């Protein structure tokens, strides 16, 4: 169902408010980051790992995936880019270790996703993994990637979402970070539109200044207001803020429940448009309300609001 994003037991649609980057070169970081309760972790083989440590990081990654119980926290691996010699081994190590998904960096075209998809299929066969169990997310980091976002979003059955990566994008656009976010407006708008059109999730870029928690909060509020599903983050200290902002409030949940109830009741009685709490409601509000309820359920706060 294009245009909405259900939060269900489908692994592609699971709750991903926070995706925490962890340097795969540092086992001490990876060993227990689940204690902070992010929805997903992104074990990074790419930029965080220096060029001459790629093998060591891949080895740590594999052992981490094999030996540590992350519970309900999703484990995504950011592999090295298609322009490097590292990505085929990265894919093999990730699939062999049993990663839940692979994040493709610097994705520019649908065929980039197809290449990784083929490598994942081979690796799943090689390591006797269940075919299709390794999901894909694509990071869009360039103007071309932004312009091809819809193709990328529709490129693979395995693809659960796309993430915007601001560092490279800002450089390519000859701009830099501004608190207003104006420099990212074109990317955020386009990629988000493409993701919603294709029915996949969309995640905003990282916020790297850990001393500016107010700036971070403001950006996360903007992300939620725009309609993002979540955000890539760089430090566990950012988790609580994102979860607070992305989790529906009791008031929002109660409103959504009233809307859904009223829509059903009025539909039975043959009424199309009516008032709930003084606001005009029609069928267009259903998917939004259902999404709020699904998000509340996935965030574990539905019971509290009832």
């Amino acid at each position, binding site marked *: 169902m294009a245009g909405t994003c259900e939060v269900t037991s489908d692994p592609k649609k699971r709750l991903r408010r926070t995706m925490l980057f962890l340097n795969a070169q540092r086992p001490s970081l990876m*060993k*227990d980051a689940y*204690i*902070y309760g992010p929805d997903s972790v992104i074990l990074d083989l790419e930029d965080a790992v220096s060029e001459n440590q790629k093998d060591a990081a891949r080895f740590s990654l594999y052992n981490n995936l094999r030996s540590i119980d992350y519970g309900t926290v999703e484990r995504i691996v950011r592999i090295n880019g298609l322009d490097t010699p590292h990505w085929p081994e990265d894919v093999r190590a990730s699939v062999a270790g049993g990663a839940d998904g692979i994040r493709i960096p610097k994705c520019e075209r649908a065929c980039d996703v197809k290449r990784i998809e083929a490598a994942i299929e081979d690796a799943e066969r090689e390591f006797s993994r269940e075919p299709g169990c390794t999901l894909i997310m694509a990071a869009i980091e360039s103007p071309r990637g932004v312009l091809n976002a819809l193709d990328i979003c529709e490129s693979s059955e395995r693809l659960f979402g796309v993430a915007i990566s601001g560092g490279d994008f800002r450089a390519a656009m000859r701009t830099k970070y501004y608190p207003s976010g104006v420099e990212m407006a074109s990317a955020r708008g386009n990629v988000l539109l493409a993701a919603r059109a294709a029915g996949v999730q969309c995640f905003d870029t990282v916020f790297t200044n*850990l001393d500016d928690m107010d700036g971070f909060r403001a950006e996360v509020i903007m992300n939620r207001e725009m309609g993002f599903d979540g955000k890539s983050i760089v*430090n*566990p*200290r950012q988790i609580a803020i994102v979860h607070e902002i992305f989790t529906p409030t009791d008031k929002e949940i109660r409103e959504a429940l009233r809307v859904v109830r009223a829509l059903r009741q009025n539909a039975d009685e043959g009424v199309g448009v009516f008032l709930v709490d003084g606001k005009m409601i029609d069928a267009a509000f259903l998917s939004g309300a259902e999404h709020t309820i699904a998000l509340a359920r996935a965030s574990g706060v539905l019971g509290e609001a009832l």
Partner: protein
Amino acid sequence: MKNAVGRDIPDFLLQGGREVFQGNNYKDGAIYTKPGPTVRAAVKPEESKILPSIRDAIELCGLKDGMTVSFHHHFRDGDYVVNMVVREIESLGIKDITIAASSLGDAHDPLAAMIESGVVTGIQTSGIRGKIGDAVSNGKLKGRAILRSHGGRVRAIEQGELHIDVAFIGAPTSDEYGNARGKGGKSDCGVLSYSVADAKYADHVVVITDTLVPFPNLPPSIDGVDVDYVVVVDEIGDPKKIASQALRMTQDPRNLMMAENCARVMAATPYFKDGFSFQTGAGGPSLAVNRFLESIMTERGIKMRWALGGITKPTVDLLNKGLINCVADTQDFDVASVQSVHSTPGHYEISTSQYANPVNKGAFVNKLDFVILAALEIDVDFNVNVVTGSDGVLRGAPGGHPDAAGGAKCTIIVAPLVRGRIPTVCDRVVTVTTPGESIDVLVTDYGIAVNPSRPDLADALVSAGIPLVTIRDLKMKAYSIVGTPDDVEFDDRIVAVMEARDGTILDVVRQVKKFDLDISDAGVFDFKIV
């Protein structure tokens, strides 16, 4: 004989009425007579108390082989006084001395050589670490060290178990009559709480200062009526190490998470209401609790009636913001607390007896609602070790830990589940410094456990939506990460006795076993470069 925390205490230690630990309140109602010091009257108005050197003071006090001298640790790792005095004792050829310090730190490493040479044969202290810890744990001290909490030390003095022949009291300021304060001068430490009992009960009292001020130095922490001599030296300590510039608030996400959970635990208990009382340590996560506490207090519109113990800037800040009514201060860790005590309205100095002596009639710790403390190890019975490392070597200090834990209604330990390869939560701590009956809640990075003796607290936390695990679950988790540790191996000789607050024996520390690392069967390492 087994004591109440399951430790076997050898009978030979139980002579002369010494008993094994039998629970926190065992000594309630005990009758005792306080000892009095032997005093030399200072009648002549024209006589001066000022002496030209420490050496003169030692000689005039009649210090002899086998006597006991005392010190405080308000100068922390910046202290010069202990080393200056013991050097003079050594050069006078006096030996077999017992050092009774409120604590000893890395600054006192030179004492290790005095232990080897027999100048120092007894140590009674709270903190014991660095080279002194190594020397004692390796059996170099002729006698047995006695380890006590801060409250336990004052108790031992006030019950006559620790008789001090000469107290040497380093003081940031003093007048010529020995009225001494922790404030002013160039080695400002704020308060002199640890020395109050020494001045009242020692036969001879020597004040050592680097800043002589005009008489009268009011209000004095150390009363001139108790002081025999005043010695003026160039420097009593290194001000930079006495008071830290600013203890940096931890940015470590693990510590912050534990601190936040600790504040949530506090807020979920029935004691968290307007007028509550609170003590916390100066360590990373404990210090950070203040930050989270402030926002919860503001949100709920409640204030703290009083804070206790070692003080740092976060507490001073809360006092200045009007979120704390008053502070009862026994030690100052940073410049902010040193400056605040006696200056900020509501920031008072109290003595260590007032603070924590379990057998007086009004220790402040008994009135605490909350205390947040650290632990090197905590076992499945909630017994805490803060004095011996995982290698069995003395490297810590009970300090006020057992006192505040024993007194407070809600004692919370904050500690990471593992440190490197060492499990913090374990089957059996190396040394019990604080009995499990004093501990109510354990907050780790892997979960929160409540002592089964406090089902009321467990109910309160669960009602507030705080998930709980058992301490055995935590131990199993720790062992699953780092493996099950082998027991530390010791020799038979007892090198230190860990006294409970009331003077009964809580545990003993034995000499560490010397072992040669046998690498013959350690396997062949084969590195192949591919």
